[in-house]
């Protein structure tokens, strides 16, 4: 018991050390800090998808909708309401989360493929709204004309706009908050009912768990995390576009989660890292970079069904 828990602590410390030191080791390896920032944000999105997929056993194929809404929420706030980065992040999170909570009420009775299909349909509704409502969203060109603002703490300011490293640490801080909340929930009695539903829905029901209500809560929480990630994504690019809501984006998130290992907490972050780094590297060589990512995905699913991290964990044990 103590051996495994101290090993877990060690792994956790290693993960955070790698993340904290990323700006220092990325550059010598041929990367750059902004790439690490993208990994964090997309990793958070993949972990949010996996909060539902890996720990409640519910596959949403339309989660990009809440991600995109988060991005638009943040962008629109910065552009029209207030030049405040924290406010933009909160607005994006609320927009994604509340829309998800609302539509979630219509979703929770569906299961499996039907749930996935309905989430795609809802996601596409938001995609077309963003696409068509040009006067507000900029339509196909995307929403421009906003930028993340320096963080004003009164006594001092943090320049997250021009300093890539400072911005990375701001995103890492946000990432830590969200991931900490996820981990906290998963270790709670509520989190254990999520896992119970994943493992055996009928048994969960006959233990007195109102399954639909619990799935709705898990879905809603996941949408809030997703909106949060989307808001950060708008800050990364100083830009939001309809593609962020498209179902192909949802597919990318599911792919990151499955590739990294959907039964493990950190797997989707690894999946996102592989995805983002491959995209960055391969897209400078070929426009067909996605076929290589797809090939890797197929290999992983065929040979490591538990994902990359699941494979590493097993070979260690």
């Amino acid at each position, binding site marked *: 018991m103590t051996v495994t828990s101290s090993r877990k602590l060690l792994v956790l410390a290693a993960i955070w050390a790698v993340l904290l030191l990323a700006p220092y080791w990325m550059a010598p390896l041929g990367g750059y800090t902004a790439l690490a920032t993208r990994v964090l944000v997309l990793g958070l999105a993949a972990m949010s998808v996996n909060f539902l997929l890996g720990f409640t056993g519910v596959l949403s194929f339309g989660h990009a909708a809440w991600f995109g809404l988060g991005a638009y929420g943040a962008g629109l706030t910065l552009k029209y309401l207030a030049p405040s980065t924290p406010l933009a992040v909160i607005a994006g999170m609320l927009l994604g989360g509340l829309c998800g909570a609302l539509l979630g009420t219509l979703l929770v009775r569906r299961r499996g493929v039907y749930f996935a299909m309905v989430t795609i349909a809802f996601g596409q509704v938001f995609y077309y709204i963003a696409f068509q409502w040009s006067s507000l969203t900029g339509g196909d060109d995307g929403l421009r004309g906003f930028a993340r603002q320096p963080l004003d703490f009164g006594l001092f300011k943090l320049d997250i706009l021009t300093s890539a490293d400072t911005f990375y640490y701001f995103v890492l801080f946000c990432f830590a908050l969200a991931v900490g909340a996820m981990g*906290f*929930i998963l270790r*709670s*009695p*509520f*989190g*254990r*009912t999520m*896992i*119970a539903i994943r*493992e*055996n829905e*009928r*048994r*969960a*029901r*006959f*233990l*007195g*768990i*109102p*399954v639909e209500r*619990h799935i709705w*809560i898990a879905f809603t929480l996941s949408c809030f995390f997703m909106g949060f990630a989307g808001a950060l994504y708008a800050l990364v690019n100083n830009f939001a576009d309809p593609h962020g809501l498209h179902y192909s984006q949802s597919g990318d998130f599911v792919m990151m989660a499955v590739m990294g290992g959907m039964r493990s907490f950190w797997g989707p972050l690894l999946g996102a890292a592989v995805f983002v780094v491959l995209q960055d590297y391969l897209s400078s060589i070929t426009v067909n970079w996605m076929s290589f990512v797809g090939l890797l995905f197929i290999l992983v699913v065929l040979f490591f069904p538990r994902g990359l991290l699941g494979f590493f964990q097993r070979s260690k044990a």
Partner: protein
Amino acid sequence: MNVLEINNVTKRFGNLVAVRDVSLTVAKGELCAIIGPNGAGKTTFFNLISGYFPPTSGTIMFDGQDITRLSTHQRVSRGMARTFQITEIFPELTVFENVRIAAEVADGYRLRPWISRAEAGKIHHNVETALKLVALEAKAGRLVGELAHGDQRAAEIAMALALKPHLLLLDEPTAGMGDQETFQITQLVRRLHRNDQYSIVLIEHDMRVVFNLADRICVLDQGRMLAQGTPQQIAANEQVQAAYLGNAA
């Protein structure tokens, strides 16, 4: 005092009448066995009691209150727990974790995003008590999916016990078991009934088990209640013999 009172319950699926006008009362502390040939409607009857679907007509009273229209989880929170013919467990979790989920739901923590050390300690104690009742405390750390069939069934019963039920519904607790495991589960059910005074309704195919355990036996045949009585009365009942022999012939 009756734990369960079922009055004239009928369940139709289209043209099929799976359960026809069945009544049953279970007294506190009683062990009532439901037997009957295949297709007699035993499992449908169980699903009606536990709220898997509502009856077409009739009423179900539990602890003196009408629960006919309550959902499964509402019935569970009032103290009704059941196990299944094919064991329903959380295979990738340990025995302890399986039972802990039940214990936390029973204490009303299911929506809680945190749990205090004192509360967790109490839950821990409740889990250990349930595991002791089914003699599974030595295997608490094992994954339930890796246990033998009999132990899995014992774990499922421990989950039901952790809900602190007033009524245990056991659907064929010895289904698919060899002699050794059948004996193990029979002894367990007997202990729960005799020593711990649980009220139990069980469905069972194995007649040795039924006549060994039951205070009262109810015979279902083609959806009807054919006979009720003590094991001696049922053994002597000609109608029952005919139903079983007719089925076998």
